[in-house]
């Protein structure tokens, strides 16, 4: 069978998982079915007849537990791959019913909390890494390397803070939904 691979790029921020799911669903409707997620917003698609498919993204900082993956597979979801902590899942949307991996606000909140924890712990981790490098190579100080490190560190802090803020907004919205 000759598969026609189509590559497309589209960048999504980490808080735009639902937008990404909707976009992948729209691509399937138009006959481009995700084969594999790539790095930095690059996606590989296989051409075929247009179809109604549900795409769902899950987040696990470390590799998702095997029994967890198995349970989602048992429920009929196709494992498309994992990138940067995100696992991509797909399932046929049969006649009007949209399948879901998370069916209550609490479990969706927990997914975003896992994502948030990654951003919050990244700052001190990066800081400690920097200190370790300077300690190992004292000759680097003071030099262009220190400036580069500080600039990168500050940029990352700002990026992580924006991500954390947007993810917190999602969590708060879900929390309002959680109680009757």
């Amino acid at each position: 069978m000759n598969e026609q691979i189509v590559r497309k790029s589209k960048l999504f921020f980490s808080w735009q998982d639902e937008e990404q799911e909707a976009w992948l669903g729209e691509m399937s409707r138009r006959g481009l079915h995700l084969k594999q997620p790539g790095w930095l917003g690059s996606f590989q698609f296989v051409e075929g007849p247009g179809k109604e498919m549900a795409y769902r993204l899950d987040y696990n900082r470390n590799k998702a537990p095997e029994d967890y993956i198995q349970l989602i597979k048992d429920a009929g979801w196709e494992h498309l791959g994992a990138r940067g902590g995100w696992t991509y899942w797909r399932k046929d949307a049969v006649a009007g019913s949209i399948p879901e991996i998370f069916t209550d606000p609490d479990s969706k909140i927990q997914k975003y909390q896992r994502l948030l924890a990654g951003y919050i712990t990244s700052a001190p981790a990066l800081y400690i890494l920097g200190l370790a490098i300077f300690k190992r190579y004292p000759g680097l100080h003071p030099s262009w390397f220190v400036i580069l490190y500080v600039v990168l560190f500050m940029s990352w802090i700002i990026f992580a803070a924006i991500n954390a803020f947007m993810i917190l907004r999602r969590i708060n919205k879900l929390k309002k939904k959680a109680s009757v």
Partner: protein
Amino acid sequence: MVEKNITKYLPLSEATYYILLSLVEPMHGYGIMQKVERISEGTVSIGPGTMYGAFSNLEKEGLIAMVKEEERRKSYALTEKGRQVLVEQIRRMEIMSRNGQGVVGQL
């Protein structure tokens, strides 16, 4: 008087109620999802992510315990504490239901 460490879990969410109800016999996650869909007559459906999260929470609270693991599928069953929570939930729902039946004719 039912103890506080039982009543603090009440009322259970519909999904949690059906999960505990299913676990009167040991069962794995997908088995529960199918059973809940069936016995709730389609009114409650539990996604696999939610199912897994519920397992971790209920296990942490000591309401269920893992009894078996084979081929990456973990089976759980109710603990004594889980059984007490479920019994009290059912008792409360019977009261709720009786009260509902009392007024349903006037609605």
